[in-house]
């Protein structure tokens, strides 16, 4: 527990955390100080001057809140007329050379400047002389598009590339009001986290080529999620919308702050992985390339089980713990060996010392916790002996090329339980569609042994089933989530106290 101190804001005593600056300290108790350049991940720069607050007694009368540590007994003045006037004045300077054409700006609806304008100014411009003109729609690389005229020169993007990615592609060139953000010619953004500058930018100066003008932000619904792009499990905000007569579609993933997992950022690949949730989805069951109903698919599967001379079950390391335990129980029921073989998910050397992991599996730690064998030899031996493979969404094509897969599946029957309509699953005799990770609730354990849960964010028009439910339909004994949790607790020591409702949103570090 952090040390608490008492100070006064507008004469009222508040208790805040020591060691933080005024913006964060009193922001935590719900009192907002306007600011543009300060960002907790990047530190205080002190250039925007939006955060000037008054101090009564002692010290200079006017201080930037971002640069001022909260101190015991401090008397902070926010709502006095002269302070409000200063905020208004600084905002006016911020706006005089700003286009203020919010209706055609992509940031509208989530723009700090627009918000402050509504709160503190809202007046007609007194600027009767020509504005400074700069460049627009500049391709900065990595799918980042920059508009110099909208930029308020807060320097967040520049600091991000210098302090966080240490790639330093961006700079603020020139001085005076001709200063602008630029890349050095021929050295555009070139790092795997670049699009974070779009989220960091408090205004509409940095936009994502992928998202630009696809949706007005106020139409979208926001849900929390956990990225399944690698074993980091970064927390994300899923922005989605169901337009009239259409399906629920995801428009973007954005980072969601989680101090112990990903901080404020996510990688660009993870960010773009929302596309896989929308595209190339398996929506209907198929038997030998013919569309069939789910019921028929289940009946057909059960027939396959009976006919098969030996079954082997393969599970994806992306599955949630609930899915894993369901499938494990099904395997026990069928007396089938279960494999989590997924070496293909590990891209040696791809990870970095920041967020990205070599292991592209979201829940390999779950496989380990449930004692599911993942070795290549065990999988291949079991498969060699079996006549039927039930593949629960494991992307074997990450490991085997097409000819090896053909060899592997030779004279085997294959049932694919999958969310993706890929080449691999097109090789299966029977496929059953299931929900992808934004469409079900579940829990996973990340590379640092942090248990995270997430809820269903998306509900498709023809919502596919959760893999756990499919396992139950195929004869798995665990029919409800209650059953699944009970079983989990039994077999995983570290999950003895497992109750998904009590896991904090920030995750639970398992010991």
């Amino acid at each position: 527990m952090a040390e608490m101190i008492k100070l006064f804001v507008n004469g009222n005593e508040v208790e805040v955390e020591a060691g933080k600056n005024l913006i964060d300290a009193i922001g935590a108790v719900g009192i907002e100080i306007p600011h543009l350049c300060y960002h907790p991940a990047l530190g205080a720069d002190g250039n925007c001057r939006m955060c000037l607050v008054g101090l009564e007694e002692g010290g200079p009368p006017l201080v930037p809140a971002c640069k001022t540590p909260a101190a015991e007994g401090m008397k902070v003045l926010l709502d006095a007329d002269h302070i409000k006037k200063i905020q208004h004045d600084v905002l006016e300077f911020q706006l005089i050379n700003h286009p203020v054409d919010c209706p055609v700006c992509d940031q509208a609806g989530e723009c700090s400047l627009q918000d402050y304008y509504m709160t503190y100014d809202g007046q007609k411009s007194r600027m009767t002389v020509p504005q400074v003109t700069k460049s627009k729609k500049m391709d900065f690389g990595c799918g980042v598009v920059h508009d110099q005229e909208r930029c308020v020169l807060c320097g967040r993007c520049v600091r991000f590339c210098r302090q966080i990615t240490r790639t330093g592609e961006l700079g603020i060139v020139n001085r005076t009001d001709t200063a602008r953000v630029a890349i050095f010619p021929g050295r555009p953004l070139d790092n795997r986290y670049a699009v974070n500058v779009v989220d960091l930018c408090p205004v509409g100066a940095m936009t994502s080529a992928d998202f630009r003008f696809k949706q007005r932000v106020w139409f979208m619904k926001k849900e929390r999620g956990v990225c399944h792009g690698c074993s980091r499990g970064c927390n994300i905000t899923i922005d989605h919308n169901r337009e009239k007569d259409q399906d629920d579609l995801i428009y973007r993933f954005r980072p969601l702050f989680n101090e112990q997992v990903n901080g404020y950022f996510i990688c660009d690949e993870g960010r773009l992985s929302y596309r896989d949730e929308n595209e190339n989805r398996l929506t209907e069951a198929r038997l030998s390339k013919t569309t069939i109903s789910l019921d028929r698919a289940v009946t057909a599967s059960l027939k396959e089980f009976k006919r098969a001379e030996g079954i082997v079950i393969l599970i994806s390391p992306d599955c949630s713990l609930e899915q894993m335990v369901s499938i494990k129980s099904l395997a026990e029921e069928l007396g089938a060996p279960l494999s989590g073989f997924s070496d293909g998910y590990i891209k040696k050397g791809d990870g970095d010392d920041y967020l990205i992991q070599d292991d592209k599996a979201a829940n390999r730690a779950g496989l380990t916790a449930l004692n599911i064998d993942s070795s290549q030899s065990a999988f291949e031996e079991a498969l060699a002996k079996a006549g039927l493979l039930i593949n629960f969404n494991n992307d074997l094509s990450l490991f085997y090329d097409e000819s090896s897969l053909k060899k592997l599946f030779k004279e085997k029957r294959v049932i694919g339980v999958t969310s993706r309509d890929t080449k691999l699953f097109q090789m299966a005799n029977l496929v059953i569609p299931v929900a992808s990770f934004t469409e079900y609730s579940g829990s996973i354990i990340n590379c640092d042994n942090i248990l995270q849960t997430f809820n269903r964010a998306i509900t498709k028009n023809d919502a596919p089933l959760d893999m756990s439910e499919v396992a139950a339909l195929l004869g798995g004994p665990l029919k409800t989530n209650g059953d699944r949790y009970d079983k989990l607790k039994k077999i995983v020591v570290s999950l003895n106290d497992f109750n998904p409702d009590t896991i904090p949103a920030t995750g639970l570090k398992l010991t």
Partner: protein
Amino acid sequence: MEVKILSAKFDIEDGHKLEIAKQHGAYATIDKLFSMKPEEVIEEVRNSGLRGRGGAGFPAGVKWGFLPKGTGKPVYLAVNSDESEPATFKDRYILVKDPHMMIEGIIICSYAIGSHDTYIYIRGEYTSQVKALQAAIDEAYEAGYLGDKVAGHDFKLEVTVHRGAGAYVCGEETGLLESIEGKKGQPRAKPPFPAVAGLYGCPTIINNVQSIASLPFILEKGAEAYKVYGTEKSSGTHLFGISGHVEKPGMYELPLGLPLLEVVEKVAGGVWKGRKLKGVIPGGSSTPVLTPEEAKTVTLDYESMAEHKTMFGSGGIVVLDETVDMVKLVENLIYFYHHESCGQCTPCREGLGWMLKIIKKVVRGEGEISDIDLLSELCDNIEMKTVCVLSAACTMPVRSYLTKFRHEFDAYVSEGASTAEANQE
């Protein structure tokens, strides 16, 4: 009225050369210096009342005392030779005519503050001056006054010249440090102050060339001898630069405290061409202008200037004769400060550009009374809201012209540009 303390060697032929300078007493204080304790040196300087000659007038000895002790980090000395405030042209004389006086001052200061690395930040435009300075430093190294053992004493001192490249804001002490570190000269927010975290994050003292060059005299003759010159609170002498509409513009060393108008008359030959006086800028373009009436009572020291709601500044006196168009002068001023704004913080970056466009509009004869009011309101809205005081260096003088010569601005609005201009003639 003139005295020759700092400028004692300026008229000596080849006085900038070590050999000649030594014949006239250069480096004579070094042995005395090393016989003293650093605290004693600081005490002597504090007693002398020497105030920073870069513009702010902060007592040098007091500033040195702010250095934290025992940080384990190196202490740096940065000598401010940016000299970019319009109407200031004094440090250059020291650099060219008596560089060894400054180097000796650097040795004194370094010993007092326990620093072994000095950077002299010199403005880029001083092309021949930087060569002269480097030549003097090379001589000092050669003669053993700089290097591993200063004049044979167990004290190491390295002096490096760092060239600016056209940015007034690098005269601001933290902009200067940023520039040495290889960055844009964008001033830092304070605290922390440079004495605590300055160059490369280490404790740093920044002093103006003239402040540093004043040290050998103080050390040699003592604080009392220095205080013979000047007033009680503004002791010593200063290199004043007098420019503008006087018969004999130039650089003059004078004790502080002399009546301004007398200096203009007697030293600088009075207003040129027999014209009448319209105003005086007392200490560089960033100091508020004085009307002839105000100028009558002001003396050349920090206190009197403050009493007259202006500043002593850098000692750059500009005399304005009756023909000066104050509206165009303000345009010239705002142009400068806008051009030199580092562009870092919002009110200065955006506000000075706005002010420039407004004053240009007025000068074109397209202004309205509300524009003049807006100008003066913008001065208030910008001032003290910024990271450094460059913005105030613009708004303070501009406000003074707007109040003291408001009728001239109004005339541009009511009579149109050409008539207003003609009336100035």
